[in-house]
């Protein structure tokens, strides 16, 4: 187990290096000159522009820029934004908001997804099951920004139940609607996954054997149907936590949540390669760690899985 863990951690190094290089190249290849953009409508002062270029290493070839970034990143120095703020403090301000949002979305999709999925799987074929299926299909097929606007219109404007946008320092209620919108697609997938797992597990031979022991219906369902059905659901949820952190870009933009997704979007527009690459590196790390945790969790839940 220890060896396996070490191997997995070592595997992260090339993954992180590869992603940062790729993202750095992508930002570099973006059309437009960030320095020119800084001047906006004002005439460009060549001397000042050259100074900025030198300060941000923009005059050096791509690969040198990348290596310099890496060197600094190793000492946890991610550089400054063009506006002069340290990148790390910008991220530090945005990240807690995103974590809050992602965790709320996560709880929302886990609780409702699993509960509806179980009920649907146990009552397969009933009207109730059909309703859940149709709703989940709708949530999957309608894009997030549509769900978002619909939510804003009905919950926010028409019925005035929840705030329409979140703003810069959002509380629980401010984030409730963004979290629900963010988690809605995954919730629909979880409903469907849980439903199909429950309904196939309930027909397993070992469930019949359990009934033949004289166990009550309740304990048969809990011990033999739910325990087995939730293994794939839990692994899906684990992986989804990573995508919730990074996939919040659309919801954060719609609801004006000043989180990581919002920050990334703004930085891409400004061509702030340092900022974008730093965020992506962070997200990659979160993703890889989540994946590792999911694999560990999988081994803990299913005795047939053993890593060597």
């Amino acid at each position, binding site marked *: 187990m220890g060896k396996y863990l070490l191997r997995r951690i070592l595997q992260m190094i090339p993954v992180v290096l590869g992603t940062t290089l790729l993202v750095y190249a992508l930002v570099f290849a973006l059309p437009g000159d960030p320095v020119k953009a800084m001047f906006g409508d004002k005439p460009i002062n060549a001397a000042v522009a050259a100074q900025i270029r030198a300060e941000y290493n923009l005059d050096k070839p791509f690969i040198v820029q990348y290596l310099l970034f890496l060197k600094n990143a190793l000492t946890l120095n991610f550089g400054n934004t063009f506006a002069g703020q340290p990148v790390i403090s910008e991220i530090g301000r945005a990240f807690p908001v995103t974590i809050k949002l992602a965790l709320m979305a996560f709880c929302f999709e886990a609780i409702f997804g699993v509960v509806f999925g179980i009920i649907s799987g146990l009552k397969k074929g009933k009207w109730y099951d059909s309703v859940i299926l149709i709703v989940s299909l709708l949530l999957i097929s309608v894009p997030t920004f549509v769900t978002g606007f619909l939510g804003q219109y009905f919950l926010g404007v028409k019925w005035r139940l929840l705030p329409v946008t979140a703003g810069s320092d959002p509380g629980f209620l401010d984030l409730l609607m963004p979290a629900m919108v963010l988690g809605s697609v995954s919730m629909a997938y979880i409903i469907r996954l849980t439903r199909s797992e429950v309904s196939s597990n309930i027909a397993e*031979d070992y469930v019949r054997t359990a009934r*033949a*022991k004289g*166990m009550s219906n309740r304990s048969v369902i809990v011990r033999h149907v739910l325990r087995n059905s939730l293994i794939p659901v839990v692994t899906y949820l684990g992986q989804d936590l990573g995508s919730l952190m990074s996939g919040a870009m659309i919801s954060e933009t719609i609801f004006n949540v000043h989180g990581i997704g919002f920050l990334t979007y703004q930085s891409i527009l400004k061509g702030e390669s340092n900022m974008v690459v730093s965020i992506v590196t962070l997200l990659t790390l979160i993703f890889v760690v989540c994946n590792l945790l999911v694999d560990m969790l999988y081994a803990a839940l299913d*005795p047939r899985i053993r890593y060597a």
Partner: protein
Amino acid sequence: MSEKNNTNDKLLAMQREQGPILEVKDLKVDFTTGDKNVVHAVRDASFTVYPGQWVAIVGESGSGKSTSAMAVLGLLAGTGHVVGGSIKLEGEEISGDTRRQYEHLLGDKMGLVPQDPMSNLNPVWRIGSQVEEALKANHMDVSHEKRSNLAKALAGADTEPQDEDQQADDDETFIGSKELPDLLEAARQALDEAGVAGKKAENVMDYFTEEWIPGSETRWRVADDLIKAGVAEEKAWTIAKSYVLGSTMTDRVAGLLQEAGLPEAATRARQYPHEFSGGMLQRALIAIGLACRPDLLIADEPTSALDVTVQKKILDHLQSLTNELGTAVLFITHDLGLAAERAQHIVVMYKGQVVESGPSLEVLQHPQHPYTKRLVAAAPSLASQRIISAKEHGENAEKLMEHHVKGEETLERSEHIITVSHLTREFRLPRRKEMFKAVDDVSFSVKRGTTLAIVGESGSGKSTVANMVLKLLEPTSGTVTYEGQDISGFKGKDLLDFRRHVQPVFQNPYGSLDPMYSIYRSIEEPLRIHKIGDKKSRAKRVRELLDLVRMPQSVMQRYPNELSGGQRQRIAIARAMALDPDVIVCDEAVSALDVLVQDQVLQLLNDLQAERGLSYLFITHDLAVVRQIADEVVVMQKGRLVEHATTDEVFDHPRQQYTKDLLDAIPGGKLRLGLD
């Protein structure tokens, strides 16, 4: 002997007095399929089980035998439901019971030992906890043995009713693992005092250590053992009473598993199902089925997924356990021989109906219904002779061989088409330094136009040999020659040519046909790969092949999932025959099939051999099948060849103990039949 008769008489009297434990009358079970069609799975089935009796329901798959059993248990799958008739358990009607009412009956009144051990235990729970569930669900007292009604009644008739009930109950207290060392120590001292010493005392102590299993052996047995070993009666009871104080849940679970024949049960109970072999899983399921000492055990093909040797051991064990406990058993099987050997009463089902029922030997010797006659004729365990066509072909084959020898270019061909010499194959096991020898120095040869069978249990290396003969696996050392050429050198065109002449038929007809390919495409594929003929001639060839395996040409456009197991195996044979091979390697080709279908496929193989002069290498664990098809037999055990002789020799004069064990394991082998 007289004592035994006495017990039997008592048993019969008791059965008459108590009445049947299970009485099924005119049972009707329907399944509703997707488009509202109703399938009558069971029609007017009636059968009766008396306390302590083994009753077998025999029939092919789809005959409704398992459905009847599940209806009794109230565990019908999916859309199945009882639509008529009555099911009485101990005289009470239960067919209309709700699930909640059934929960009270299941486990402690009726137990189940299901069919497929691999799928009947939940992979995510430890074996022990799955046994524990059964005990907990029925609130079993884990520190005392519960005796079945019959056992109580018999014991009551046996001895004068003991002082008080309380007293008798205390005698049924189990040994606990905590007190076991003290108990053994006390026993040793008592033996010393009784003057039992030296070698004899050692033996007695060994016996005690082996027999006194926590959670399984009771106080009165301990006392009994001590008295038999020479300890004074009073002393024996004192020891038993002071050291046998009842077992914990863990002890009881281990005790149950040990009773079901699982060695080192206490350790094993902490393992997960995937760490067990099929035989061990089935023992665990038996432990679960009997955990709450039900009066009726329903055993639904409990051993059909297992090797014959394991099958015999498990059934022997189940039989002695149920006899000891006085449990009645409703035994579902497709093998009439097995049924006749184990049960006192046989019920034959066919297409949902009971077509015949009666005492076992009666049914076997004077079958009335044509279907029963067919079953008797087809049961591999009952065939005392090889299939007639095989005998005929034996001569044919010789003629064919003569013919061949006279033919041109065959002069240099050897008599042996496949020769295997000093074949060895090693595998590396995880976390082990030394290599595991799956096949160890095996040599034999297949004569042209004959059948050589390789027999052995699973794990004996027989399939590994088959894979090496097919060149699907490279040997570690040793050679396989085909027509005198070493196959290890075959590459490119030679290899393709070799593949054309040596074809496989595998065990699982469900897995060996691609579900996405139509039957036509499956059979045509080898022709296409070897670029034989054009589209038209290939279609013609496929039709010929279907005729050859006696399948209608209409199946060409159908898909494997629309065919039964036997039909699929025929398709697999047709595919193997497509390229006119000389050798067919059948790896357990009939093991997964029902007896009747198995019989048909074997006939087909025999006929094809007679017509085409094919040579077969036949891999199987079932000696009964070997007798029907093989000319020569090679017996393998743990990767080594232990016996090699003609079929008759092996059956009449087996030389190795292992071969004798295999022969003994054939179900129904010892029954004498008055067949005409």
